[in-house]
C-alpha cells in the first residue's frame, strides 16, 4: 500500500498542517518508506488475538466527588498567544 500525492495532501489537511507541493512530495517519499516497513504486519495471522491498548490491564479508578482543581485562569491565560478579559482570541468563525 503506498500513498499518492493526493493522499498526502488529504492527510496533511486532516492533521491541520500546511504543506507546499514540494514538501508533499518529500513527505510522500518518506512516508511510503515507512509504510514499506509497516507492511510486514499484514502477513501476520492475528485471528482471535485481543488488541492490546495498554501494558497493564488496569481499571479506571473511581474517586470521591470532590473539588480537586482550582481556578487558575489568569495563570493559564498568561501563556496564550492572544487572550484578554478571560477570553481566548481566535479569528472570526461565524459571520
Amino acid at each position, binding site marked *: 500500500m503506498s500513498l499518492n500525492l493526493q*493522499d498526502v495532501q488529504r492527510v496533511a489537511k486532516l492533521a491541520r*498542517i*500546511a504543506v507546499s507541493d514540494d514538501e508533499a512530495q518529500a513527505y510522500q517519499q518518506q512516508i511510503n518508506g515507512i509504510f514499506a516497513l509497516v507492511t*510486514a504486519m499484514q502477513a501476520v495471522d492475528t485471528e482471535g488475538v485481543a488488541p*492490546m491498548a495498554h501494558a497493564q490491564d488496569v481499571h479506571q479508578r473511581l474517586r470521591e466527588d470532590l473539588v480537586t482543581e482550582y481556578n487558575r485562569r489568569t495563570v493559564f491565560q498568561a501563556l496564550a498567544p492572544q487572550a484578554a478579559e478571560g477570553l481566548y482570541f481566535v*479569528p472570526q468563525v461565524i459571520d
Partner: protein
Amino acid sequence: MINYGLSRLSSMLASRQISSVELTQLFLERIQRYNPSTNAFITLNEAASLEAAAQADMRLADGNAAPLTGIPIAHKDIFCTEGWRTTCGSKMLENFIAPYDAHIITQCKQAGMVNLGKTNMDEFAMGSSNETSYFGAVSNPWDLAAVPGGSSGGSAAAVAARLAPVATGSDTGGSIRQPAALTGITGLKPTYGVVSRYGMIAFASSLDQAGPMAKSAEDCALLMNVLAGFDARDSTSLERQTEDYTRLLDQPLAGLKIGLPREFFAAGLSDEVARSVEAALDEYRKLGAQTVEISLPNSSLSIPVYYVLAPAEASTNLSRFDGVRYGYRAPNYDDLDDMYEKTRAQGFGAEVKRRIMIGTYVLSHGYYDAYYLQAQKIRRLIAQDFTQAFTQCDVIMGPTTPDTAFNRGEKTDDPVAMYLSDIYTIAVNLAGLPGMSIPCGLDHRNRPTGLQLIGNYFSEAHLLGIAHQFQQATDWHERMPDAFRG
C-alpha cells in the same frame, strides 16, 4: 569529585565536607564551560538552582534531609517545571513557561534535589539522535562528531560529560536506553505505570515512561526511590506498595538464569557490539550466572507495530498544539483553519510532522482496522513472547543498540535507517516491561557499547542488582571521555 557516586556525594553533604551550594556551583561552572561544545542543556537558571541549593543546605543543617537532599540533577526538557521554560525541544513551546510541576519534578523537589537545568532532546521525544531538536543537535562527549542518541540525548551527554551527577529521561521506544548505551552511562526504563506521567509532555501515552539516567546502577536505584510511586493524577499510575530499589544491589548472582534471545544476536548486529556483549556475558558467567538461548519470535515486528501505534497516539496528543491556548501561533493567517495549519506547519519540525501525518493516516476511516487494530493485536503477541521467555529465565540480556554512536548527519535523510537503531529496545516498551542499559565496552573509535537487561514486570530492584554486581566486577561505568576531565 565529578566522578563520585550519589551515595558518596550524599555522605559528603551530610558530614558538611561540602555544601549543596558548592556542589551546585561546581556543576554549573562545568556546564558554562562545556555546554558550548555539547549543547546538552537548553535552559539554565543559575539563580533558581543556587536558591534551591541554599534551601537544601538549610535542610541539611536542620537535620531533616532525605537521602538525596542537596544533590544536583538535570531534567529532560519534557518535564513541566514551574517557572522554568519547558520546550520539549520544539519551536512550538519555545517560550512556554510551565505553570505547574510534573509529578517527578515535585518528587525531586520534595527530596531536596537541586534542578541544574533542562536538557536538550529530540523534538517531542521523536528521534534517536537528538538531531530533531529545534535548539540544535547535541554532541556525544566521547566524540563531538557523533550523536549522543535520543531522544534523551541531552541528559545522556550531561551525565557522560559529568555536567550533572544524575539526570531524568523518558523512554517511549528506547529514549533512555539507546542514548545511555551510546554515551556509556546507565539508564533504566521502569515498568509502565511505576513512574507517574503527570506533567510529562505526552508523545505516545501507552508507551511513555520516565526513568533515571546516571553513572551507575546504584545511582539509578537511589533516584528510582525518588521518582517511583502512585500518583492519582495519572490514570495509568499503578497503586503499589512503596519499595526500596536499592534492596537487592548486593544480592549475589549465583544461579541467575540469563536468557539470550537469538533474534537479538542475528544479522544487523555489528561485530564490535557483539564482541563486547559476549565479553559482558562471560563476566556474568564468572559471577555465577548461566545463559540459555531463548526466542522472541515476534520481535522483528516491533518496529512496524511501533511506527503505527506511536504516531497514532502522537497525532492525537499533539492535536492540542493549535495556537490558541499556549505555545506558538503563526504571525499571519486568513481564518481559523489557516491559523491552525500555518501554526502547526511553522511550529513543528519535519520529523514531528511526518509522524503526525502517519498517525492521522492510520487512524483515518478505512485504514483503522488494517493498521491500528492489527498493530495492537501484534503488540499482544510481542508481549506474550516475553511472558513465555520468562518461564525459562530470570532476566533477558542482549545489545541495547545494533551499533555504536553514528556521526551527526549520517542518518538524517533516511528516517527508516534512523528507526532501526531502536530495533532492540522498542519491544520492551510495547510489552510495558522494565529495561536497562549499562556500559560494557568501547569500540575501536572509543565509542561506548551498551548491554541491555530486560526484566519481568516490577523487577526493577532485581535488574538494578544484576547491573550493580556487574559494575562491582568491571569499570566500564567509571570510564569518562578524556576531553571532559578538566
